């Protein structure tokens, strides 16, 4: 493209020359429309837009019609005609390159005879998905709206919840071909300025041909790209994004995906669900403990099972080890191999279930339950206790509300199983120490992954192992915000009210 040359190509004001310039750039694109019109019957102008990307009704009624009907005298005097259209967002353009990008992203370029400054009118149209219930994070109690593929809608959903000037957004265009709009949002008085500066620097430095999903950005800007642990959280829920903003985190919107990146994260956050905060505190705490328990099961149970039945037979109650021995009597494989067969087939089943069309899904579950669950046991290839262990592990991993964290846990289970098969409980401990060490070292945008516990912060305990009632969580977590930590006016006020008003 000629626009790539050193000298930026500028519009001259000679309509035919400028039009030629545009036509050269957009050569070979069949859905480009050039619409000529005469403003007020005196001035020639041309509208350039891509018919599939724009709202043609808008162009007809709010650009062409008012301009053609413009008073002749007025039209002669004017140097700019944007104000006479019904389009709220109008940018000037003097150079070719930004004008081309604008056309490609669904805007309309207006070239006017005698004016070196063209206008870019925002006439974005095309099909958009409406706001729907998020499918990847469902809640029983809580808002039902979810992000869509449109960046503008997504930002607006969050802004609707955050009616403050402190909610700042910075826009980036990422990807040399896709020119994807990326917006970094944060609450100015809460988020650490250093962190915001750093994240903006990281996003701005991305140099890639195309960005189609938040995952691209996540991988390109995370602190430790080799770590199995996710260092950002993503969500489909505007309320989750708003909650993270309120704790001093940033959000990254990416055009074209309903997922929004949030950071910095801690491991604790990965087993919290937005519903923890909507239901009563006691329920939130119970669910949290349940998830901690099942997190441990998902990570360690197969390994512990392998270790006990190949090394530590004395650790189980006599009757239990005898019935395990009874069911393993005809099994041809060592426990480790048996466990690997089952775990891998479970992962395959899960993967097949996710990817397959819904209509075929039931076939998978029948095959899985019958062939693997029952027939394998009856044929004496795997033992019944192993099937129980694997199913329990599977259920446990589904208990974790964050999919990216759950999949990490599922992955880490395999090295632990190998260690258990080779070295028994000692191996599990070695593996656990390595994982814990890695998590202690890991940082998400500079914030320790286990912050609150390592380094220990007493005030952050409110929201890690328990979920204290809101009136007890007066302050925001220290690991994220050092300033403006007060979340609540005064809880003593509530206490006073409770004492005074009978029935409270």
């Amino acid at each position, binding site marked *: 493209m000629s626009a790539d040359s050193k000298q930026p190509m500028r519009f001259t004001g000679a309509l035919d020359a400028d039009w030629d310039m545009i036509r050269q750039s957009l050569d070979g694109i069949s859905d480009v429309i050039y619409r000529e019109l005469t403003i007020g019957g005196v001035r020639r102008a041309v509208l350039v837009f891509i018919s599939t990307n724009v709202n043609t009704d808008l162009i007809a009624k709010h650009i062409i019609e008012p301009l053609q009907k413009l008073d002749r005298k007025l039209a002669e005097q004017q140097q700019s005609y944007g104000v006479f259209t019904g389009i709220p967002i109008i940018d000037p353009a003097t150079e070719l390159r930004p004008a081309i990008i604008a056309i490609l992203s669904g805007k309309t370029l207006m070239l006017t005879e005698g004016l070196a400054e063209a206008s870019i009118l925002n006439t974005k149209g095309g099909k958009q998905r409406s706001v729907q219930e998020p499918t990847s994070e469902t809640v029983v109690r809580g808002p039902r709206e979810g992000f869509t593929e449109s960046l503008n809608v997504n930002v607006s959903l969050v802004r609707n919840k955050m009616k403050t000037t402190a909610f700042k957004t910075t826009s980036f265009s990422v990807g040399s071909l896709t020119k994807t709009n990326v917006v970094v949002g944060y609450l100015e008085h809460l988020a650490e300025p250093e962190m915001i500066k750093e994240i903006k620097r990281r996003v701005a430095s991305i140099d890639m041909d195309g960005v189609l999903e938040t995952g691209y950005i996540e991988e390109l800007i995370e602190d430790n790209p080799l770590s199995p642990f996710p260092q950002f959280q993503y969500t489909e829920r505007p309320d989750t994004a708003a909650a993270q903003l309120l704790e001093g985190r940033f959000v990254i919107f990416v055009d074209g995906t309903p997922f929004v990146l949030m950071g910095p994260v801690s491991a604790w956050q990965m087993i919290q669900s937005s519903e923890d905060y909507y239901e009563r505190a006691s329920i939130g705490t119970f669910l949290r403990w349940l998830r901690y328990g099942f997190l441990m099961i998902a990570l360690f149970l197969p390994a512990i099972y392998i270790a006990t039945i190949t090394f530590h037979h004395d650790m189980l109650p*006599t009757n239990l080890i005898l019935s395990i*021995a009874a069911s393993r009597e*005809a099994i041809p494989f060592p426990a480790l191999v048996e466990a690997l067969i089952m775990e891998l087939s479970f992962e395959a089943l899960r993967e097949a279930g996710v990817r397959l069309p819904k209509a075929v899904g039931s076939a998978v579950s029948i095959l899985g339950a019958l062939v693997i669950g029952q027939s394998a046991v009856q044929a004496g290839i795997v033992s019944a206790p192993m099937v129980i262990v694997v199913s329990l592990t599977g259920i446990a991993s589904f208990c974790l509300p964050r999919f990216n964290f759950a999949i990490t846990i599922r992955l880490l289970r395999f090295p632990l199983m190998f260690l258990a098969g*080779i*070295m028994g409980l000692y191996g599990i401990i070695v593996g656990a120490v390595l994982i814990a060490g890695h998590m202690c070292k890991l940082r998400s945008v500079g914030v320790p992954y286990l912050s609150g516990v390592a380094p220990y912060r007493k005030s952050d305990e409110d929201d890690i192992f328990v979920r204290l009632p809101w009136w007890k969580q007066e302050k925001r977590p220290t690991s994220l915000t050092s300033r403006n930590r007060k979340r609540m006016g005064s809880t003593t006020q509530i206490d006073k009210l409770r004492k005074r008003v009978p029935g409270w």
Partner: protein
Amino acid sequence: MRNNFIGAVMISLVVILTTGCWDRREVNDVAFVMGTALDKEGDKYRASIQVALPSQLGGSSSGGSGGGGGGSGKAWALFSKSGETIRIANNMEQAGIPRQLYFAHRRTFLVGEDMAKEGIAPLMDILGRLPQNRLSVFMVITEGPALPYMKVTSEIERFPSEIVRELAAAYMKSPAMAKTVIHRLLSEGMDLAIPAVRIVSQETGPGASDKTTIKMDGMAVFKDDKLVKQIFGQEAEALLLAMGEAQMVEVPIKPPRGKGTIVLRVQRPNVKLNPKVKSPDDIKFTLTLEGNVSVVENASAFDTASDSHLNELEEVLNTELEGRLKDLIKQLQTEYRSDPIGFAQTLYFHKPQLWRHIKNKWEMIYPTIKVEVISAMHMENTGTVLKPLGIQEEEMVE
């Protein structure tokens, strides 16, 4: 950087793979020993071990090959060899068993009568030395040789050892495990008394099958580490009461008036020992027995509804228990010369100075000490009915 990483992975792989797995032992390469029976055969020990057979246990369909054929045969195999020590006997057994003997799940340790009479101290060593041998194993003395106990035919539990384990666990307040036995053997002023069992027919009477089972209703009384006497039935019950080890005792008594029998249950009885020493020649003990009593069966016409009647019953029970305990203590003092109730230990704890003085003469003093037994049982409830059911008001004994 990259080379370092690959190097580290290689080294750790080599370290893990070459050092791991050495003690790997699948659960099916292990023979779980459920119980041991120990007898003396001349100079040698006969150690009989009961090994669980998982393939016979059935459980969840244990594979197509077995056809779910669990429960058809015995779930255990018995191996018996005699050797100079227990370990040697065990090793001889191991030579004939393709799976490795595994002792960590053994909870039953039966010692034959003859073996116990020669002393049990030598066999405590192996129980304490090998970590696989758990000190929580229940020790029980059998009437006669121990081996037949491993072969009783009762089908109530899967292994005969299991019968003994379940019985022993419920028999005493602090069941006689190897660790309590060792503790008793080593503690001063207290002799050992542990449960004794005998083989009985599972059912009696005409047409009864020949199934046998193990009955735990006795106590083996030791002097030092040697068995003195096995007592069974009421006598053993009295000993348990006096030791404060009885869980729950049911005592049948005759009502003060009228015919029939009333069964009273003593719940969680407690014992207090109080020494009164005037001089080394004049030592007196008061043994107080306390507990709550309830009426569990009234097979008489005696009215249990009134307070005064219940007090009368209390009195009858107290006299009965006092009599039993007095007889028992007399026998312990004069016949068995054993002190499982711990008179000497109480003296040691209360009057250590005096104890040091008379320690060496205790053998002589013990038969002469006077023991006063006070039974202070408290009638607590009469069950869900007050008066005997099924008897007319007029027929009741006032």
